[in-house]
Structure formats: structure tokens, C-alpha cells
């Protein structure tokens, strides 16, 4: 068994430090929002986890294309790892969004474009995992997974556009709009810092998960060897 690479150890440490700093910034550095109060602080990690969720699905789609072109199992592991991580982070984003929505909109859930799209994204990638589960041949599993990840990634923006054609009440932070709210410099710094931190968390987890996938594959290969 290969030891954990040095770079990964350093990345682990850096990620933990950044995460602690981000938590500190959210609670002690960012000012209290005038209208929404304390609950607004959930926003920093809410957007950051949603960002990681979408990043992972982008990675999965790219890995899918790479797998179909190169037929290299390594890309399959990357795709699966990205989907698994993003599924969890997107779920966190939905839950933290609900926590914010209850006091702000007066309801845990509303059928608003971003929320509905988020729910559908979760279903698409849950279907991805179910599809993989139903296939035994690893090569076919990789191929079908790649195809489905690509199709899912194409369909999700269309879903968003189609629901967007209705009206939306979700605050628009980046860009302008009636529901936008302005961030003070300290808020903006905290926000960008959170985004950066969660990107690191994503990279770190992805690396670990890919490593796990490769080790699992080695175990499979060794098992086959013993049986022979």
C-alpha cells in the first residue's frame, strides 16, 4: 500500500486551517446584516457548498467526456468521486438554504427555480448512482456512467431556464436585480474567502476519494489473483 503522498498531507492541513479561519470570519469578522440578522450568516457557507456542488458536476461531466475519448478507467473514478462529493455538498446547500428560508420567506421550501433545479440535480445524480449499482461489468458501468453524467449536465441548465421563465424570488447576490442585496467589504471578503475555502475542501476530498477508488480497484485485482 502506497503511503499518503506528501502534497496531500499538506493539502489536508491547509484545508483544515482555511476552514477554521472561514468559520471564524463568518462568525466574528463579517458584520451583522441589518435586515435579516444572524441567520444571514448561513449565506456564506450556503453559496460555497452550492458552488462546490456545481463544480463537482462540471468535473463529472468533463471526466465523462475524457473517459469516452480515452477509455481510461482513471477518469471513471474521477467522475464517480466528483458526483459522490457533490451530492453531499448540494444537499448541505439545500438544507442550509432551508434554514435561511424559514425566517426570511416564512417557509422551508418553495417551488422556486433555483430550489427546484437543485432538487432535480440531486435526483439526476442519485439516478446516476442507481444506474452504476445496477451494472456489474466495470467497463460498462464506466461507459454508462460517463454518458449519463454528460446527459445530466446538459439537461440541468435547460431545467433551470425552463423554471426561470416563471418569476423568481431567490435573492440575486452576484449581478443586479430587484431582490439583490448589497454586501459591505467585510461581507464580500468573508464570502470570497468561504468560496475559496470550500474549493480547497472539494479538491482535498476529491483527491482522497480518487485515491480510495484506486485502492479499491487494487483490492479487487488482488482478490481475483488469489482466486486464480
Amino acid at each position: 500500500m502506497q503511503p499518503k503522498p506528501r502534497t496531500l498531507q499538506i493539502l489536508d492541513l491547509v484545508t483544515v486551517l482555511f476552514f477554521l479561519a472561514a468559520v471564524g470570519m463568518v462568525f466574528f469578522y463579517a458584520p451583522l446584516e441589518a435586515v435579516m440578522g444572524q441567520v444571514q450568516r448561513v449565506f456564506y457557507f450556503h453559496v460555497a457548498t452550492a458552488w462546490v456542488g456545481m463544480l463537482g458536476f462540471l468535473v463529472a461531466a468533463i471526466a465523462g467526456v475524457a473517459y469516452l475519448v480515452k477509455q481510461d478507467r482513471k477518469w471513471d473514478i474521477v467522475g464517480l468521486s466528483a458526483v459522490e462529493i457533490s451530492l453531499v455538498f448540494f444537499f448541505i446547500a439545500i438544507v442550509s438554504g432551508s434554514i435561511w428560508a424559514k425566517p426570511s420567506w416564512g417557509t422551508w421550501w418553495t417551488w422556486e427555480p433555483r430550489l427546484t433545479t437543485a432538487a432535480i440535480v440531486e435526483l439526476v445524480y442519485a439516478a446516476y448512482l442507481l444506474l452504476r449499482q445496477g451494472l456489474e461489468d466495470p467497463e460498462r458501468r464506466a461507459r454508462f456512467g460517463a454518458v449519463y453524467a454528460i446527459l445530466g449536465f446538459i439537461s440541468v441548465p435547460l431545467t433551470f431556464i425552463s423554471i426561470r421563465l416563471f418569476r423568481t424570488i431567490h435573492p440575486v447576490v452576484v449581478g443586479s436585480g430587484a431582490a439583490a442585496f448589497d454586501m459591505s467589504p467585510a461581507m464580500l471578503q468573508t464570502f470570497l474567502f468561504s468560496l475559496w475555502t470550500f474549493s480547497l475542501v472539494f479538491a482535498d476530498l476529491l483527491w482522497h476519494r480518487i485515491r480510495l477508488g484506486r485502492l479499491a480497484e487494487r483490492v479487487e485485482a488482488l482478490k481475483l489473483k488469489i482466486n486464480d
Partner: protein
Amino acid sequence: MRAFWRALWAIVWKDLAAEVRSRELLSSMLVFALLVILVFDFALVLDVKARHSVTAGVLWVTFAFAGTLGLNRSMAQEKDRGCMDGLLLAPVDRSAIYFGKAIGNLFFMFIVEAVVLPVYSLLYNTNLFKPGLLLVVLLGSVGYVAVGTLLSAMAVQTRTRDVLLPILLFPLVIPVLIAAVNASTAFLQGWELAEISPWINLLLGYDVIFIAGAFMVFDYIVEE
């Protein structure tokens, strides 16, 4: 190019001929579609006004559910009798197989829709035969079948088979359902054309994107 069209037509013809002889696909799709309408009637029985305003929704749920039945059956036939292997061995372009199956499936969808629309009009005393609505039905069915044929080829090769197709298919066709339901409602209630055209454009865009996408990835699905 002529060989491509001949192969495509041969596959469509084979599906239609098999269906004319066995009638197992269309009969189950039709009975199921009528059952869905009945179930909705019982579900909405208390509120006549609600039932009237959800016409488009009921129609599209019916088409979508009956559609999965047909898609599953049509691919399972290929798989069970080893017909798919025969098709793959034949010296024809793989995309001809995809388009052949898709056109066959589309044809069955159209037959179901051609029965459901008049029956629904009759039962609920409304006229569903408006050119706009028929256009929406056409575009929506094309998008649904384009993705559905591809995914049913995938689902049929898994351990869970029939169960998996709706789970794979519905999250991906949600744009079609949203756009189709909205456009259908709009045509039924006689909205302005300017309000309807975004939905029609969305349907057109979805159809083009997913036909092209399915065309590109189908090879990877049937590869042995």
C-alpha cells in the same frame, strides 16, 4: 447515405410489423394511458374547476407514463430475443439503429396520443384539437422519445431493468414536461403568441440538443 436510410427504414418496418402481429406494446400502452386518465379523474373528482385547469398536466403525465411502458417494452424485446446482437452484427451504421428505434417509438407514442386526445375531449367535453396543441404534442414527444430511446437502451442492460428507466428518464425530461405543459395550457386558454413562443423555442432547443447528443453517445451504449 442511401444504405443508412434503407437500414433505418428496415428497423422501423421490423418494429411496426412485429407490433401489428403481437399488439402487445400498443395494447398495454393504451390501456395504461386510459387508466391514468381515470385515476386522475378520481383524484380530482371533488374539484371540477381544478380538473379543468389541469388538463395539460394530466395529458402530459399520461403521455410520459404510457411512454415509459412502451420504451421499456420495445427495448426489452430486442434484448430478450437476442435481436439486439443481430442488429449490432449487421453491417449498418449504429446511429441507424438508434434513429430506427426512436422513430418506431415515436410512432407508438403518436398512436397513443391520437387515441388519448379524442377520448379526453369526449370525456371532459373540451376540444383538444387545436393546431397549436398538436404542434406542442409533436415537439414534446420528439424530445421525450429522443432521450427515452437512448436511456431505455441503457436501462435494459442493467440488473434492475424496467424499474430503472423512469428513474433515469424523468429527471432528464423535466424541461420537456415543463415547457410542454405550459405551452399546452397556453394554447388551450388562448394566450398571446408572444407569451407562448419562449416555450416552443425551449422545446425546439431541447429536441435539437438531445437528438444531437443521443446521436453522439449511442455508440457507447450498445458497444459490446
